Structures are given as structure tokens and as C-alpha cells.
């Protein structure tokens, strides 16, 4: 605790001495002589402060219509590229860990997945979008974290901490992470970035990123290329049988990601190739003699046209076509003596047409239809789907509607999505929301239904009870108060009830993997965030809490003798994310994550039952120092992650016989970014 004091005092010193020097300077010129054109850039509420610029920036993900963060019908966290760069974040785990309620756990074969609000959201409950492309793989609907996504390319991340199914369908049951990368309108030229990380006893990561963008009149082109090589950890991993190995060299995370986008007027196209490979020895429940690779290969293609129609240009019609081709969780035949071959190629072909109609400036309708076909082929000779065939295919059709009305008293949103799937039937998810900002105060009252669409393997491995979508009801209330021009306090309450969750189980008698709908799940809790932002930098503090008392009915997720929390996820979590500009070129950015007590299974007793163990609370303290443009276009950063050497471990959020997986030890990070045409870089927001 004492180690925190210098950081806080440093912060207070800077705040006291520099914050009041910022002067509202509009009186310094003869503004009466402004031209009409200049006048049209006037803001109704004056020159916004740094904080107001952020909280008034428009969020698209929560409603498909841009609304400010404070009025958007969702509980939203907006993460800017400035915050990402300042913090020295190594990967998306470091970025998302600072979001209230989000934490991580280990699944199987060393794959790390995401949880939110105390609930394991790894399989199909959290949608990750990169430039509109759904990253979730189609076999189990998971996302894989750990030196995976190209964070140097990110312009901003909109995290919707609540359900998004009414807009996005069956992978957005508990939340949406909408990653938007930089386009040629954000930078023109070439940006090179390199990262090296050194853990206590092994290389942490070696990453290289190249971004290029070119804009000429209405034509834009951008390219992002990311090549990463990392070790998940340099610690020893011990399985339930106390068999141990060192993860350095046995937990490689290799990533190649190419993202190409272009647009011309209303037409746009994007192609993303994402090749992610993990290396693991921990397998499902016990260590293997040697490490083997696990591949996640994805290709995404999108072609889209946005036509603005009508005399008043109040109708936008956007047809789009997407093709997603993946081979996730693939194990190679070279290692078939260790692990069973698994190679299933999937494709999703989807067509979507969305109409957005502004009846008036204050009333907007969004309506659309979507169809997709999923196809999977088992590429292993001796393996078949449960229908006895090498190939399965499914068809889904959906329609969605949303009405948004902004009135003087309240903003009102009503929406719904209806899906019909050829295998598991239908899902209907309505939502209603009220939001409003009254000067310094704002509130949100949201009620949403959401669903999780059974994935291809959920359907394939269903038992005799069949398979249907799991349904969730979420109530969220948020209140916010802008304490000063530079600071905002928000607090929200959530209540989640999930019916008929899709749960994995292993049938001992038949020796088969199975999925079925049973039990119930959910959580309730609060999230509080305080943001302060000014010319000197920013300070973000948040705290989140959850309980599952009376909600969780699945034994494998529960902690024996503890009714209020679930495996892997702490009931108390707090984050601090600060950055202080020190002079013209330097910034000092401390980030802290306090992770409360957690529980996880660590072994079995003599009778063969899993034994849960308490993991004490820990503090992840990080510090990153950046120097930007001391040499024109060059940014050099150095820092240390996990200064206190707390050694975070990823706990399995269910009783799956996988021991907690060590994360990285204390890691020294060096980042170098060189912007070849820095002059044309736009101001980062």
C-alpha cells in the first residue's frame, strides 16, 4: 500500500500546480468579426474541455446511430488511442483489464478468454468486432486473448458493457468490444512500431507493426500489418497431478494480422487475415510431454455500399456482403501422438441490408434484414460430425428494427431483433431504453433481452435434450454527474438473468463431450467510474463489484460454500489509469489494477474431487514513460508491467480440471514508433 503513496502525491502535485493555469481564452480575439463559415463551427456550450471532448464524442456501437457517450443507450467505456499509447499496453488484455467488470480466465489448451461482471463470457457471450468484422470463431464462438490483436492500429475501442443482441445478434449476449482501427483520414503516410518485452527469465514479446494510409479526394486506402511473437509466461505451470513445466518456450503466442481497407465515396471494402497460433503443453487436464501448436486461422472480407437517398438526404441504405472463413482450434497431425487431430474449416456467408431513416432530426428509424449460411467441414479423415457426415451447414435469417426519439425530456429507444435458425429455431430479443442529459447530470435506464446463438460445435455436441439459444434479460441503470468541467462521475447498477445457459459437460459413461441447456445464471452489481481529464493528462479510477447470490445454478461454475461469487472472477475490482504530461515531450503513465480475492480449482483430493483454493487479492502496478516528437515523428516509450511482481494467474472459470495458468512475470517493455509523415497526422482523440 505504501508504494501507492508516491504516485498519488505526484498526481496531486501536478493537479494542484498545473490545472488552474488553463485559461478559457476565447476573449483574446475579436470574435465579432468571425465569418459566417467560422460561426458554423461554434459550439452551443462553448469551448469543450478535454474531458468534455471525450464524453461528448459520438458512440456508434450501442445504437447504430451516433450518440454521445452520456446519451448512448448502453453502459459504455470509450478507450482512446492516446490512452492505449500512453499506458504502454502490451496487448488487448492490458487494455480491457482497465474496463470495469472485465477480467480474464483460462479455458483449455492454454487459451485465455474473457469474463465480464463475474460471468464467463468466453463462448459466444462477448462479441469482438474489428472494423465491423466479427472476430468470434464459429465452432465455439470464442475469442482468444494474449498478444493477439494489433493494438498499434487501434483508433478507439467502444466497450458496451451490457447486451448487444438486439443489434448484433447471437454473440453479443453480455457485451460488445468494438475495435475501430485508424484509416487514411486519421493518418497519411507510414507508421512503424516495434515492441520488445523482457520478463524476469524469458523474452516476453517481440512485435512489429506497419500501418500505411493514403487519401486522395474521396479515395482512401489503409493497410495494417502486425507480426507478433510472445511467451504467455516464464513461470512454472503445474497441473492437477503436480506435473510441472516451465512456460518459457512452451507457451508461444504467434500472431500475423493483415488488415486492408479502402473506401470511395459510399463504397467500402475490407479484408482481414488473422493467423494466431498458441503453443501449449497444458492441454485439457494434464500436461503433455512436449508442447504442441494450436492454430486459429481467419479471413474476413466485407464489401459495403452506403447510399444516401431522398430529397432531404434522410435515408441511408447500406447493403453489405461478408465472408468469414476460419479454421479455429486446429491441432496439427504432426502431434497426433500427443493430442487428437482437430481441424474443422468453417465459413459464414452473410448478406445484410440496413436502412436508417431520419423522420425528423430527433426521430430515427433503423430497420434491416440479415441472412447467413454457416458451413463446416471436418478435415480429419477419421472424424465426422454427429450426423455421420463430413460437412454440416445451417441457415439463419434475421430482421431487426429500432426507433430512436430524442425529446426535450428524455431520449427513448425501442428495438428488437428476431432470428430464425434452421437448426435451433427462433430467438426474439426486444430492448427499451431511456437516456437523458440535463446539464451536468445524466441518467440511463435500459432493459434488454439478449441471446446466445448455439455455435456449430454446440449443435454438433448437443445431447438428446436438444439445443436452443440461451436467453438473457438485463436491467441497467446509470447516473452520471459532471462534477467540474474536467471531471465526471458515473455509477451504474446491473442485473443479469440468463435462462437455459448452454453448458459443456463430459459424459463419463459414454466418454463423450456434450453441450446442453440447463440451470440458470446471472449476476448483479455496481460499477463506478471517475474520470478527470485536462491539458496535463488524465486520471481514471473505476471500481466494480458483483454478486451471483440466488442466481447461479450451475455447480461447475460455483465455489463450494460460497454463494456470492463464481470461480476465477473477483467480486471486487478497481483500476486506476493515469497519464501526466511532464513538459512538452514526456508523459508518465501509471496504471493499477486491484484484483480482489478469487477462487479456482487447483487439484483433486484423494477421492478424485476437485479442490478449490482461495487466491489472495493482488495489485498489478505498471508504469510507462513516453517521449513523443523529441525527434520529429519518433515516439519512444519504456516501462515496466507488474512492477510489484504480483504474478497474475488465469484461473479456469469452471470445474474443468485445468489448473490456473500463470501470466507473465514482471516485464520491461520498450516501444518505438516512427511516423514517417508525422506532419499530416491528425490530432489524436
Amino acid at each position, binding site marked *: *500500500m505504501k508504494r*501507492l503513496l508516491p504516485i*498519488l502525491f505526484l*498526481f*496531486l502535485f501536478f*493537479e*494542484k500546480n498545473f*490545472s*488552474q493555469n488553463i485559461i*478559457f481564452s*476565447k476573449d483574446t480575439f475579436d*470574435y*465579432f468579426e*468571425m465569418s*459566417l*463559415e467560422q*460561426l*458554423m*463551427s*461554434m*459550439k*452551443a*456550450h*462553448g*469551448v*469543450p*474541455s478535454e474531458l*468534455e471532448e471525450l464524453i*461528448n464524442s*459520438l458512440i456508434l456501437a450501442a445504437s447504430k446511430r*451516433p*450518440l*454521445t457517450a452520456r446519451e448512448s443507450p448502453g453502459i459504455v467505456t470509450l478507450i482512446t488511442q492516446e490512452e492505449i499509447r500512453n499506458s504502454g499496453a502490451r496487448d488487448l488484455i492490458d487494455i480491457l483489464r482497465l474496463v470495469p467488470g472485465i477480467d480474464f480466465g483460462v479455458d483449455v489448451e492454454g487459451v485465455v478468454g474473457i469474463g465480464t461482471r463475474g460471468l464467463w463470457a468466453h463462448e459466444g457471450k462477448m462479441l469482438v468486432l474489428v472494423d465491423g468484422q466479427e472476430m468470434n470463431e464459429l465452432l465455439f464462438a470464442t475469442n482468444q486473448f494474449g498478444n493477439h490483436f494489433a493494438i498499434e492500429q487501434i483508433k478507439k475501442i467502444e466497450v458496451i458493457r451490457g447486451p448487444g443482441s438486439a443489434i448484433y445478434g447471437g454473440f453479443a449476449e453480455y457485451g460488445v468490444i468494438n475495435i475501430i482501427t485508424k484509416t487514411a483520414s486519421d493518418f497519411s503516410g507510414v507508421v512503424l512500431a516495434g515492441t520488445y518485452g523482457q520478463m524476469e527469465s524469458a523474452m516476453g514479446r517481440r512485435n512489429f507493426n506497419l500501418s500505411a494510409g493514403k487519401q486522395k479526394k474521396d479515395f482512401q486506402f489503409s493497410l495494417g500489418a502486425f507480426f507478433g511473437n510472445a511467451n504467455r509466461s516464464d513461470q512454472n505451470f503445474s497441473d492437477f497431478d503436480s506435473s510441472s513445466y516451465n512456460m518459457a518456450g512452451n507457451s508461444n503466442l504467434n500472431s500475423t494480422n493483415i488488415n486492408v481497407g479502402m473506401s470511395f465515396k459510399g463504397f467500402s471494402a475490407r479484408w482481414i487475415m488473422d493467423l494466431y497460433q498458441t503453443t501449449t503443453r497444458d492441454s485439457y487436464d494434464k500436461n503433455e510431454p512436449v508442447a504442441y501448436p494450436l492454430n486459429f486461422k481467419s479471413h474476413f472480407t466485407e464489401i459495403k455500399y452506403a447510399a444516401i437517398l431522398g430529397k432531404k438526404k434522410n435515408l441511408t441504405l447500406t447493403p453489405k456482403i461478408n465472408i468469414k472463413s476460419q479454421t479455429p482450434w486446429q491441432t496439427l497431425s504432426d502431434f497426433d501422438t500427443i493430442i487428437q487431430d482437430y481441424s474443422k474449416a468453417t465459413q459464414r456467408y452473410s448478406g445484410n441490408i440496413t436502412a436508417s431513416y431520419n423522420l425528423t*432530426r430527433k426521430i430515427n428509424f433503423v430497420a434491416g434484414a440479415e441472412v447467413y449460411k454457416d458451413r463446416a467441414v471436418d478435415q480429419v479423415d477419421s472424424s465426422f460430425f454427429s450426423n455421420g457426415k463430413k460437412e454440416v451447414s445451417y441457415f439463419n435469417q434475421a430482421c431487426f428494427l429500432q426507433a430512436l426519439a430524442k425529446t*426535450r425530456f428524455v431520449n427513448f429507444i425501442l428495438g428488437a431483433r428476431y432470428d430464425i435458425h434452421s437448426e435451433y429455431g427462433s430467438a426474439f430479443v426486444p430492448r427499451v431504453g431511456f437516456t437523458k442529459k440535463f*446539464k*451536468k447530470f445524466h441518467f440511463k435506464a435500459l432493459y434488454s433481452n439478449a441471446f446466445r446463438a448455439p455455435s456449430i460445435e454446440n449443435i454438433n455436441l448437443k445431447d438428446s435434450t436438444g439445443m436452443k439459444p440461451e436467453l438473457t434479460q438485463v436491467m441497467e441503470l446509470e447516473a452520471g454527474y*459532471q*462534477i*467540474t*468541467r*474536467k*471531471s465526471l*462521475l458515473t455509477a451504474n447498477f446491473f442485473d443479469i438473468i440468463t435462462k437455459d445457459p448452454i453448458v459443456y459437460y463430459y459424459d463419463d459413461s459414454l466418454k463423450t463431450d456434450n453441450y446442453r441447456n440447463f440451470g440458470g445464471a446471472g449476476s448483479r452489481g455496481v460499477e463506478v467510474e*471517475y474520470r*478527470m481529464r485536462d491539458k496535463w493528462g488524465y*486520471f481514471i*479510477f473505476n*471500481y466494480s463489484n458483483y454478486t451471483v447470490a440466488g442466481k447461479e445454478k450451475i455447480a461447475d461454475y460455483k465455489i463450494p460454500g460460497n454463494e456470492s461469487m463464481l470461480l476465477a472472477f473477483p467480486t*471486487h475490482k*478497481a483500476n*486506476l489509469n493515469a497519464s501526466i504530461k511532464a513538459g512538452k515531450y514526456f508523459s508518465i503513465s501509471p496504471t*493499477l489494477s*486491484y484484483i*480482489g*480475492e478469487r477462487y479456482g480449482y487447483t487439484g483433486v483430493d484423494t477421492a478424485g474431487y476437485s479442490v478449490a483454493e482461495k487466491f489472495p*487479492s493482488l*495489485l498489478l502496478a505498471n508504469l510507462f514513460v513516453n517521449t513523443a516528437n523529441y525527434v520529429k515523428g519518433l515516439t519512444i516509450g519504456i516501462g515496466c508491467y507488474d512492477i510489484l511482481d504480483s504474478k497474475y494467474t488465469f484461473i479456469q472459470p469452471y470445474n474443468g480440471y485445468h489448473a490456473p495458468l500463470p501470466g507473465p512475470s514482471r516485464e520491461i517493455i520498450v516501444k518505438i514508433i516512427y511516423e514517417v509523415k508525422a506532419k499530416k497526422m491528425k490530432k489524436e482523440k
Partner: protein
Amino acid sequence: MNILVKYILASGLFLMIFMGKTERVFSQDADYKAYTLFLYNFMKYIEWPNTEGDFVIGVVGDSPIKQELTTLSENKKAKGRKIVVKIILTSEDALSCNMVYIPSSKSSMLKSIFEKTKTKPILIVGEREGLAKKGAAISFVVDDDDALKFDLNKSVMESQSLKVANLLLQLAILVG
């Protein structure tokens, strides 16, 4: 709860209080400088049939914009005419003005003021969005990104013999 969490929470609370005391200006209130600049440009780009005497701006009731308009009147003229700002309380009072500004809180006065002035060259400007569809010649609009714009009802202005310069029309959102 762990003592560390309490410590961090307490520090956060302290900072909030600390910051609250150092702040004086809130931009969440409307910036009436911006509104005044628009009014000044309306004077420049709209032609009144009568060009004699002072240019009188009537502000309905009490509004912070009066202070800004007074600053304007001390520094600028409306096409050579002295600008006079006064508070008006009734629709009768509007008849002695060239321009009437109706603050949001006095929007209900529009109907009676419009009835009195609809055939007279008196420009009614409403602060609240939508008033240009209900009788005001101009009303302000605040976009989602906080940009200040304005609706303009051309037929109302024509009936009041007010001529609008094309440059202003190009920037206006035409309604009515």
C-alpha cells in the same frame, strides 16, 4: 473489503472533492457568446424595411444572454444603427423591437408574440429548437456534436418583409 480498496476509494473521493473546489467555470451551461454572435450576424445579413433609429433587441424575460448582448451593443452597431437591448415582459412590448429573442424558458410566449408581430418587420428568434416551425423566423438547433446551427422559416420572414441574404440562407436549415 481489503484495506487497499478502501484506501483507493478514499483517495478517489478526496480527489473529487479537491477538484470540485478548484473549478469555477462550467461549460455545460449554454455559451451565450455563441448565440450572440449568431444574432449579430442575423443583423448583418437580414434587411429590415425600416432603417431609421436605434436597432432594438428585446429579450423576453430574464436571460444570461442579455449580458452578452449588452457587451455587443457597447462594441458594435447594426449597419450603422446603435444597438439597444431591453427586457420585454409582454407581447405588446415586442412591437417596439426590431428583433425579439425568446429564451428557452419563455418559449410559451411565442404564440402571443407571433400573433402581435406576424405582419410586422420584427424578427423573432427562438432559443429552443423547433420554434421556427411554430411562428418564429429563426430558432437555434444544437447538433449531437454540440454544434450550434439554426432553422430559418422563409415564409414567416417574407410575410414580415424581412429579406435574407443568400449567404445566410445557404447556412440555414430551411423549415416551414
